Structures are given as structure tokens and as C-alpha cells.
């Protein structure tokens, strides 16, 4: 079966998006004939240029540009690249993707996204309530609306405690000075409220899951983080099989009836051996290629669930434990015509000739969303000759 699959999250920095991992999973499977259409926000997102990653790439506007800009560009991309499946890979894209879900369907593009309600339930502010309802442990957490509440909150929890931004970042504070510094830095970036959370000492696990939307897990890959970046992101890890961890995930998925990809972060307390849910992200993690290595290719399983009606829907596929991954950074030499094409036309189509106009004069170009250069300055041929 042929699928023209559009995927985002192509940035491949030290805190990479999941796009490249998802693409590697899709390239590694043989069940579906997948054409990869990369959607990037910036011409410098490295996955655009990785060999054998994307067949075509299109720049799209940042989510902050609003839903209409996103819809307009997606209509163009869907038409040009004949997209028939869209897999957004970043949290911040989901609101726009959901707003366009019905229209995409009418254009012949399938999605498999969590609902707005599911996304709201997993937000940091609602996670405590979700855990209570799903009978999962969650570290004691206090919402901090201003600085005056900060130290009182820390006194209630005791040190060490964790200071969290409403969207991103978490820092362990071991004393008042740490707390003050972390709270100021995080609130500067993300604003209030902050969350102050009981610190759970122990081991951190990261779990990638595909949910079937009816409360079951299509597949699950659980990983122990073995190497971290300074931002706490996984730079290496190993798949594990932990009945306690799986039971938590099963309960979570059953309660949420989660549809599509999910990443859950769970701590096991070293003192009590109990599991605490820390965070849920509504997407695949950047390390998703490990799922393929461990025999549980989650992007492939997701497509199988959607496109192969005969597949058994009752059994969950578990990753083989003891599979190890390590990430590495690599320098690439980028083809200037490809970079130029991304910058100037906002797209790159491999196999198709890249057309760079050489007419001479200063023109106002039609703005391609996401393309940095709105005005292209071209030199008249005769001026260039002189």
C-alpha cells in the first residue's frame, strides 16, 4: 500500500524533534510503500538534508502564525505532494492540526490524533487530577501563581523539590537560593503559573506508546534513560520490561482512551519501588527509532492499525527488552542548491529539477509561509555583466 505521509519535527539539534526517528522507523519497515513529505519551519532543520530521509520537504509557518496560515499552507502542500496521511510530531502543532482535522479528512488526508479533551487532560495543570481519576501516583504538586507563594510552597514540600514551567523545563532546587534562581529563570521564559513538585528520587523511565483510541495499547516501548543531555533529554537508553510500569501505562491508556502517539515519563521511587507519573507528551519521542530496533516499530504499528483491517486489535506489541541505543551528533555537508531551494521557494522536491529563476530585477515575490525572504533581489543580466 502506498502512503504519502507528511511529518513534522525535523529539527535535529541536541534537543531534537521526533521527525527523523519517525522517518527512520518508516524507512525501516517494508509493509507499506511510504513516501515521506517533510514539513519544516526553517531551512536549517537538519533532517531536510539527511540522505534517504525526506522525498519532499515544504516549509510551513510556525504555529504562532495562527491556524489560518497553517491551513492555507497545508492546502497547498496536500495538493502538491498528494499527502494522504499527516503525522504531526510536536506538541505545539496539535491545536492547529485538530482545527483542520475535518478539512484534512475532506481533502483525503487521514490523521490519528488525540482529541482536544485528551490533550487538555494531560496538561501539566491537569495531570494531578488525571492521576487521581486513573489511580496513578503523582508527586505532590503545588501551583505557584506569584513569587510570594514560592517559598511557602517549598516549605510545605521540603527540599529538594522540582520547579517546573507550565510548558517546558524542570529544575531540581535543593535550597532557597536554587529555588529563587530557577523560579526566576523559568517564569521569565514561560511565565506563571509555575509548578512546585515533590522530588521523587529514583530511576527515570520513558515510554513510547501508540493508543488505539478505545483504551488499548497498540504497542509499547519502555526505555530506561542511560545517558542524558544537560537538559535532561535522553541521549542513550535501553528497552526494559517492567510489569509494574506496564500496568501504569495500561491504566493510563484505558482511562484516557488515548488515540495515537504518546510519550509518558515515569519515575520509580528508589525508597518505595512505587511508580509516579511525571509527564505525558502527545506525540512520539525523539528516540522512537529504538522501537524499531526492539521489534516494536510504533509508527509502522500505527499505520497497520489504521490501514490493515484484518490485524488483530486485541493484542499489544511489546518491545524486546535489553535493546540499547546511543545518539550521536554528526556534521553534514549540505548541497547549496538544496538549501537555496528551501530558502527561496520554501520547498525541496528530490528527483524533480529545482527551478531557480534568473530573471533580472528587483521583484516582490509572493510570500511563501515560513520562507524568510519575502523580497528577492535579482540582478538584471546586463547589469550583472557590467
Amino acid at each position, binding site marked *: 500500500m502506498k502512503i504519502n505521509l507528511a511529518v513534522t519535527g525535523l529539527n535535529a539539534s541536541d534537543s531534537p524533534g521526533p521527525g527523523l526517528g519517525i522517518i527512520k522507523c518508516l524507512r525501516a519497515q517494508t509493509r507499506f510503500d511510504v513516501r515521506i513529505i517533510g514539513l519544516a519551519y526553517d531551512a536549517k532543520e537538519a533532517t531536510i538534508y539527511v540522505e534517504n530521509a525526506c522525498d519532499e520537504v515544504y516549509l510551513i509557518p510556525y504555529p504562532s502564525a495562527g491556524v489560518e496560515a497553517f491551513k492555507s499552507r497545508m492546502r497547498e502542500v496536500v495538493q502538491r505532494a498528494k499527502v494522504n496521511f499527516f503525522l504531526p510530531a510536536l506538541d505545539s502543532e496539535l491545536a492547529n492540526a485538530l482545527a483542520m482535522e475535518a478539512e484534512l479528512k475532506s481533502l483525503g488526508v487521514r490523521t490519528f490524533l488525540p482529541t482536544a479533551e485528551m490533550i487538555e487532560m494531560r496538561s501539566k495543570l491537569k495531570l494531578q487530577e488525571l492521576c487521581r481519576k486513573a489511580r496513578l501516583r503523582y508527586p505532590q504538586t503545588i501551583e505557584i501563581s506569584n513569587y510570594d507563594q514560592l517559598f511557602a510552597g517549598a516549605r510545605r514540600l521540603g527540599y529538594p523539590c522540582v520547579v517546573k514551567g507550565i510548558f517546558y523545563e524542570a529544575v531540581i532546587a535543593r535550597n532557597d537560593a536554587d529555588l529563587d534562581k530557577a523560579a526566576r529563570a523559568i517564569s521569565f521564559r514561560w511565565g506563571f503559573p509555575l509548578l512546585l513538585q515533590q522530588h521523587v528520587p529514583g*530511576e527515570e523511565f520513558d515510554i513510547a506508546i501508540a493508543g488505539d483510541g478505545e483504551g488499548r495499547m497498540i504497542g509499547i516501548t519502555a526505555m530506561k534513560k542511560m545517558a542524558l543531555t544537560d537538559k535532561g533529554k535522553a541521549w542513550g*537508553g535501553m528497552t526494559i520490561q517492567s510489569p509494574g510500569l506496564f500496568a501504569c501505562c495500561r491504566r493510563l491508556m484505558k482511562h484516557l482512551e488515548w488515540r495515537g502517539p504518546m510519550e509518558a515519563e515515569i519515575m520509580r521511587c528508589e525508597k518505595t519501588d512505587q511508580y509516579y507519573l511525571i509527564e505525558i507528551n502527545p506525540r512520539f519521542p525523539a528516540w522512537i527509532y529504538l522501537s524499531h530496533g526492539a521489534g516494536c516499530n510504533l509508527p509502522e504499528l500505527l499505520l497497520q492499525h489504521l490501514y490493515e483491517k484484518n490485524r488483530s486489535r486485541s493484542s499489544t506489541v511489546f518491545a524486546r527488552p535489553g535493546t540499547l541505543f546511543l545518539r550521536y551528533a554528526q556534521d553534514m555537508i549540505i548541497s547549496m542548491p538544496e538549501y537555496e531551494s528551501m530558502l527561496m521557494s520554501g520547498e525541496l522536491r528530490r528527483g524533480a529539477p529545482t527551478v531557480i529563476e534568473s530573471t533580472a530585477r528587483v521583484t516582490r515575490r509572493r510570500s511563501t509561509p515560513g520562507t524568510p525572504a519575502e523580497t528577492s533581489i535579482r540582478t538584471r543580466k546586463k547589469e550583472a555583466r557590467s
Partner: protein
Amino acid sequence: MGKKMADRFNILASGLIIDLVSGRTFSANPTGLVTFRGIMEGRKKAQLVADLVKEFEIDEKTATRDVEEFLVELKSFHLHED
């Protein structure tokens, strides 16, 4: 306990022990490895002692002390329970 342990741990050819539940890895000296393999096979303490006596030609008292110390150490790492 033996089957539970056998499901949980992988011992590689080099002697590296992988805990498939926690994702941690361990190494043990030769006597530790023999004892650990014995635990995974479900052998009782007396049998573990006998294994060490046979394998390493040490007296029973020394082997008993080794096994007991090793079991305490495993417990401290949450790797084994009585």
C-alpha cells in the same frame, strides 16, 4: 524465585548482567557470577554453597560466608528477595 529471576536478568558471555526490569547493568566476580546463575536457576542457599565449594575448591565455611554476603549485597541493590 528462579523463574522470576531468569525472566528478569540476562547474563551475557562476558559476565555482564542486565536487569531487564530496571535497565541497570552489573558485573560480578567469578564466584558472584556462579552464585547469581545458581539463583536464576532457583537453587537453594545450601546448593549455592556446594556449587562454590566444588567450582573454586574452597572450604564450606568460606563459601557460606561468600554466599551470604553476596545475597545481602543483591538485596541492597533490590536485585533479590528471600
